């Protein structure tokens, strides 16, 4: 008996001891000086050379290390001065950029017109493997017929002239994209692979350290040309792959700012006196694509019936927690060219049934409904949204079987046109209508981003004309017309434009989330 008691006592002691040991650690975040921002996010960057990737987690960091010739507006995609303080063009073919003076790269190299020319030469001399985005935005590389840029030349130290082979409407917006940031020629001439891990730009912060899958640290660049900026001394980007764990880290005070907040956690954050909820302006669309090559979706009436059958309001209230707007066009209203005159398909099962009957399916049909397997801001919970859609379709007699694949498989199979109806979405890169409508619905992009295989000659011509139309009003008209066609032909059921959520500690100020998802942190500070 005695021994038993001894053992119990020993175990109890062990428990108490471990508790005390843990307790004497105290709170990890107390006593930290508030000139360091810890930004918790979902994933790590793949490279710190923005021109070599297409992935958002990289741009989140590089937008603070580098600058572009032109900037987007604080919370929109209007064109603002950047490393170029002025620019002009008479004919849409020759652009003259006047550069900021007295700007230095982090390695001491002078920023001047020669540096800009070298950056453009570097991209143009590359290939699609090396600079995947350059080809998408400027048509090709040096010797390609499709390459839009004729020449980039220096005129003195602080003037750059870019000549185009033909007008390109979104040219200035393309120049403002994070991937076309101007890097130090001294740094990239040492070798591209070396440069990816040792980025050198002119931005408010310079690179310090990268721990793979863990954290990236950047610190204040003392000789930054905009006096008084940045306000922080250091920023640490830290990866927390799990959304709930990231929020836990924020509540515990280990991080100051977290992105990828679940809509369901929004209320909890608003109710926490130490935290603030931040909404990122929406520049995305979540949709249900209907593969038009697969019967019965080859019939326009069936596709329209799907649009009438789905109750978007319930979906948005239940799974976006109301933090989204119902979508009627393939692009969000903030994009120039949005057609607000389009009349949204209302939720009307009766009308849907009529259309099905008209198309020859009075008793409905069976189909596969592909549910997105990963959460994205434009689709926080694919599986549950699919269930709502399934029950909506059951009301009109359509039996939908929900299927899902692991993400790369899902995209691969969908791009081959193997899905009847699939959920997907898109976040804009440069805020241009072309980047939504042409990329997602034109015949040129079948097999890549046009997963529905939708094809329409009239619409295609509108897109091609719009790409070279420099008169903004005429261009808007072209896109409005295209949206009418899309609405009528209904290759999609547009679902929602969501508002991605972030959360921060209460004392954080000056953080302005950008719709592209790349946030400049130079004005951020703690009260």
């Amino acid at each position: 008996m005695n021994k038993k008691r001894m053992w119990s006592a020993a175990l109890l002691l062990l428990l108490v001891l471990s508790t005390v040991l843990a307790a004497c650690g105290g709170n990890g975040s107390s006593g930290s000086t508030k000139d360091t921002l810890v930004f918790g996010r979902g994933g790590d960057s793949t490279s710190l050379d923005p021109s070599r990737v297409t992935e958002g987690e990289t741009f989140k960091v590089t937008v603070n290390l580098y600058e572009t010739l032109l900037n987007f507006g604080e919370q929109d995609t209007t064109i603002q001065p950047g490393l170029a303080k002025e620019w002009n063009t008479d004919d849409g073919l020759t652009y003259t950029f006047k550069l900021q003076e007295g700007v230095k790269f982090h390695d001491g190299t002078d920023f001047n017109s020669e540096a800009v020319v070298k950056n453009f030469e570097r991209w143009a001399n590359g290939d699609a493997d090396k600079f995947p985005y350059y080809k998408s935005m400027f048509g090709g590389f040096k010797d390609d017929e499709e390459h839009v840029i004729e020449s980039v030349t220096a005129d003195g130290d602080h003037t750059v002239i870019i000549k185009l082979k033909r007008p390109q409407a979104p040219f200035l917006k393309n120049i403002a994209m994070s991937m076309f940031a101007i890097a130090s020629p001294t740094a990239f001439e040492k070798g591209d692979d070396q440069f990816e891990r040792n980025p050198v730009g002119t931005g408010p912060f310079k690179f310090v350290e990268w721990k793979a899958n863990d954290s990236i640290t950047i610190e204040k660049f003392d000789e930054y040309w905009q006096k008084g900026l940045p306000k922080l001394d250091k920023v640490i980007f830290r990866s927390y792959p799990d959304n709930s764990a990231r929020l836990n880290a924020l509540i515990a005070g280990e991080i100051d700012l977290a992105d990828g907040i679940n809509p369901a956690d929004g209320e909890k954050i608003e109710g926490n006196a130490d935290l603030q909820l931040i909404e990122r302006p929406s520049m995305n669309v979540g949709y249900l694509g209907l593969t038009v090559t697969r019967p019965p979706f080859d019939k326009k009436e069936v596709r329209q019936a799907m649009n009438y059958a789905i109750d978007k309001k319930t979906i948005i209230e239940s799974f976006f927690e109301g933090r989204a707007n119902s979508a009627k066009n393939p692009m969000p209203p903030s994009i120039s060219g949005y057609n607000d005159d389009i009349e949204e398909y209302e939720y009307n099962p009766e009308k849907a049934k009529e259309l099905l009957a008209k198309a020859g399916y009075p008793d409905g049909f069976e189909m596969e409904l592909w549910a997105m397997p990963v959460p994205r801001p434009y689709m926080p919970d694919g599986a549950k949204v699919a269930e709502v859609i399934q029950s909506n379709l059951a009301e009109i007699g359509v039996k939908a079987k929900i299927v899902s694949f692991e993400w790369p498989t899902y995209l691969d199979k969908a791009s081959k046109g193997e899905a009847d109806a699939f959920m997907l979405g898109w976040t804009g890169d440069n805020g241009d209508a072309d980047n939504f409508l042409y990329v997602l619905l034109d015949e040129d992009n079948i097999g890549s981003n046009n997963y529905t295989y939708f094809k329409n000659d009239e619409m295609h011509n509108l897109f091609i004309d719009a790409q070279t139309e420099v008169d903004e009003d005429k261009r808007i008209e072209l896109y409005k017309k295209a949206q009418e066609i899309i609405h009528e032909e209904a290759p999609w059921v547009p679902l929602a434009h969501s508002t991605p959520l972030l959360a921060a500690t209460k004392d954080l100020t000056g953080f302005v989330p950008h719709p592209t998802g790349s946030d400049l942190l130079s004005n951020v500070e703690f009260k």
Partner: protein
Amino acid sequence: MLSYVGRRLLQLIPVLLGMVFIVFMMVRAIPGNPAQVILGQQASPEAIAAMNARLGLDQPWFIQFFKYLGGILQGDLGESMRTRLPVAEEIWPHLAATMELAFFAMIIAIIVGVNAGIVSAWFQNSWFDYIAMILALVGVSMPIFWLGLLGQWAFAIEFSWLPTAGREQVRDPVHAITHLYIIDTIIQGRFDQLFQVLRHLILPGIALATIPMAIIARMTRSSMLEVMRSDYIRTARAKGQKMFWVVYKHAFKNAVIPVLTVIGLQMGMLLGGAILTETIFAWPGIGRYIYDAINFRDYPVIQSAILIVAFIFVMINLIVDLLYSLIDSRIKYD
């Protein structure tokens, strides 16, 4: 002994070759094109074609296989398609992170598991035995996901005793030399950081230890029960030896072999990385590294990382086999 080790190492060659081949074929059997996934939805078909050509993915599979095999034989594990870094260089920090966590978790699992098992067997059918075995059953069936988030909520948020996640205090990062942070902080004499690193190990360590702990406890108990019934134990007790020594010295020594086998297997598994624990606790370990590689269809990384993990697994089991002969002199390998 040496010739036994030599034989075992030779046997490794066909095993690993088979592994390389199976993994190579498996990663290609799953649908999804690496270039498409790595470049993302935004990529143009030309960019994808160019990447396929650079990666040699446009060649027949057997040419790809022999190129890869040739590389491995020369000690080249290939290059990540996504980050363009050599796998050999990229893998170490992840492996080190996992090793540190796995050893820590294993120490917890062994100390608690073995003792719980011994005491349960010693006082068979007592309240301690019942509670310990119920806890062990709960332990093996515990969803790590839930346990991890609950631990974060309780110990990091409610009580603020421990950090929620990560390997180090974010605002005071460890300067990595070996990437084993316990060693790095000691080398640099940063005992304040060492303390923080140990605190960061506690929650993920316990979460990761739960399952092995439970398995070890049950295995120890059943093995001990068998031994405790033997004649020599009765003799030892009859001699009037203290029960504590009878149990811990005489009985445990003979009961330890199957426990050691289980520990070896569990250790091998822990070193393969634990995706759930690593995800919840933002631990930059090998499990997440491989998981990410699978998601991006990063063939060289998947192949080489699995090869390394398999190699470690086999080596640990070899070490366990050798330990048998140290513990039990009746076991000889020649």
